[in-house]
């Protein structure tokens, strides 16, 4: 139950955040989508032993979070929720790669290095995807997909799914509440009613789809979903895209922390 309610809350939080009007929110959705894709590609192109070189890529989520005034809590929570699978697979690295390397007078296991590298990549990648939606919103993102020539049937489908998630999650939470009140101290739905419980919801869903179609047809639905007016890309958007891409390329081709570190150590010496 709490899981269902919290999912609904999660969706709404990101939806609300996307309605803000900060300078990041005002950047063209297509520009933000492309920047995110470039960011992910560059981060994931790093080798498995890279840790230090990945650190400058924390700049991107941090700058977006602060400029777009996104609260850290909800984003961090989701990033952590996406972790178990990564940890589950990554934890085998230290087990299977027990070679060691020495640095700084200490012995490090290479397996732990690759594990840490995966964790860092996961943090920044999941964060970047969540920030994309938290600063853009589903409707604008759908408009960006249309601009990329994604067929309208898919975009429409995506938007309708998103729109009705709220309705159906509320419906299922009512059904779960009703069930749990009649089946106290039971973990989940009993196997005897697996089919009928979900089946009932399917039948209701089909009826609902019919009503939705009828009302859409009455409002002149012709296969197009109007997402509202989206302005064209302007020079500011280009600056945003190329600025970030330049940073990503520099951070990819130069080990920035190493440069800073060697500079500092030379100065100190």
């Amino acid at each position, binding site marked *: 139950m709490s*899981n269902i309610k919290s*999912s609904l809350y*999660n*969706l709404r939080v*990101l939806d609300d955040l996307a309605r803000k009007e900060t300078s990041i929110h005002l950047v063209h959705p297509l520009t933000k989508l492309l920047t995110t*894709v470039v960011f992910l*590609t560059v981060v*994931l192109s790093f*080798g498995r032993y890279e840790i230090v070189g990945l650190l400058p890529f924390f*700049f991107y989520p941090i700058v977006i979070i*602060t400029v777009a005034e996104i609260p850290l809590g909800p984003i961090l929570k*989701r990033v952590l*929720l*996406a972790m178990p699978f*990564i940890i589950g*697979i*990554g934890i085998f*690295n230290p087990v*299977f790669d027990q070679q060691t390397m020495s*640095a*700084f007078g200490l012995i490090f296991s*290479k397996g732990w290095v690759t594990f840490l590298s995966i964790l860092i990549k*996961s943090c920044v990648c*999941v964060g970047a*995807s*969540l920030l*994309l939606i938290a600063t853009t919103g589903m409707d604008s993102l759908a408009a960006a997909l249309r601009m990329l020539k994604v*067929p309208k*049937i*898919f975009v429409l*489908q995506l938007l*309708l*799914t*998103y*729109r*009705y*998630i709220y309705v*159906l999650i509320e419906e299922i939470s009512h059904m*779960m509440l009703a069930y749990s009140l009649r089946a106290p101290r039971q*973990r*989940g*739905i009993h196997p005897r009613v*697996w*089919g009928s419980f*979900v*089946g*009932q919801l399917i039948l209701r*869903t*089909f009826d609902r789809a*019919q009503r*939705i179609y009828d009302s859409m047809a009455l409002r002149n639905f012709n*296969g197009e979903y109007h997402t509202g007016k989206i302005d064209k890309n302007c020079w500011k958007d280009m600056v945003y895209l190329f600025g970030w891409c330049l940073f990503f390329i520099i951070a990819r*081709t*130069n*080990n920035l*922390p*190493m440069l*800073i*570190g*060697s500079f500092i150590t030379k100065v100190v010496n």
Partner: protein
Amino acid sequence: MHMADALLSPVVGGSMLAASVVVAAYSIKKTQNELDEKKIPLMGVIGAFVFAAQMINFAIPGTGSSGHIGGGMLLAILLGPYAGFLTMASILMIQALFFGDGGLLAYGSNVFNLGFFTCFVAYPLIYKWFTRKGISPKRIFWGTLISVVIGLQLGAFSLVLETLLSGKTELPFVTFLLLMQPIHLVIGIVEGLITAGVVAFVWRERPEILEKTSAGLPLGKVSMKKVLTGLSIAVVVIGGGLSWFASTDPDGLEWSVEKTGGTTELEASSSIHNVLADIQSKITFLPDYGFKTSESDNEVKATAQIEEVWPAVNTGTSVSGIVGGALTLVLAGLTGLIISLSKKRKEKATL
């Protein structure tokens, strides 16, 4: 189980995305040709239904734990393979964007693992085979159960292959396989039983839903051939092209080169490679710091060489790395702090 961005290399992620786009394009064409516009809202609402149904806990008798459904096969049975695949793709997109399940670069892999194998392999080859002589409760039960199990096994196998080709984990192939397949067998049996129960219920109450789907969407041999041909072309072209340009990342390609050619060295003799190396050397600043050459070497050559470089790291470089790394993080944090402070000041000034 969703594939995650962090476990993928751009080459594998890009190839899987290309493969999924081909299947999606084919499905869109088929959906547009064969279905009325009534099906569009139905696909949308059913997608939302699967999302909601994934949140139901199903009690597994005798274990004290609970299971969930993935929904790929249920979608294929309710909507047919084409509309089912597209619906699964939109569910996965929402999961990636809002919940961080999977990721944008892993999107193609997830659509392929969870959508393609259920809708285009298990559904036509297993479920349709079981129900070829008409629908009955028994055929529904076995057809659904076995197709869900096989679909999930294929998806898990594909996930293992993608992870290993990406080269981010150290898990040996067989160990990873022995880890993933049995887990997904258990998950598959539970999901198969739930899905079978649901399909049987729908058939009992509203048989026309299933009859329409199975009658309206013939899956001929020719169309499957087309899908597979398109798929292989896309994977080869995009995968080949991407790996050519992404040679700075040795992971996936390196792995396959090592396995097929028996050598870990990549010859950096091509002209494009030289051009890229040249550009890189131009944009790399502060060239007099010793690590520049080893850095670009690492990128052009192989993972194996990076491995060789590792133990040779001297203390001076490590200190630089640790100091620089810490400073980078502090700088990143400070940037955030300064931006938010200046924003607050601006807000105060406007009040």
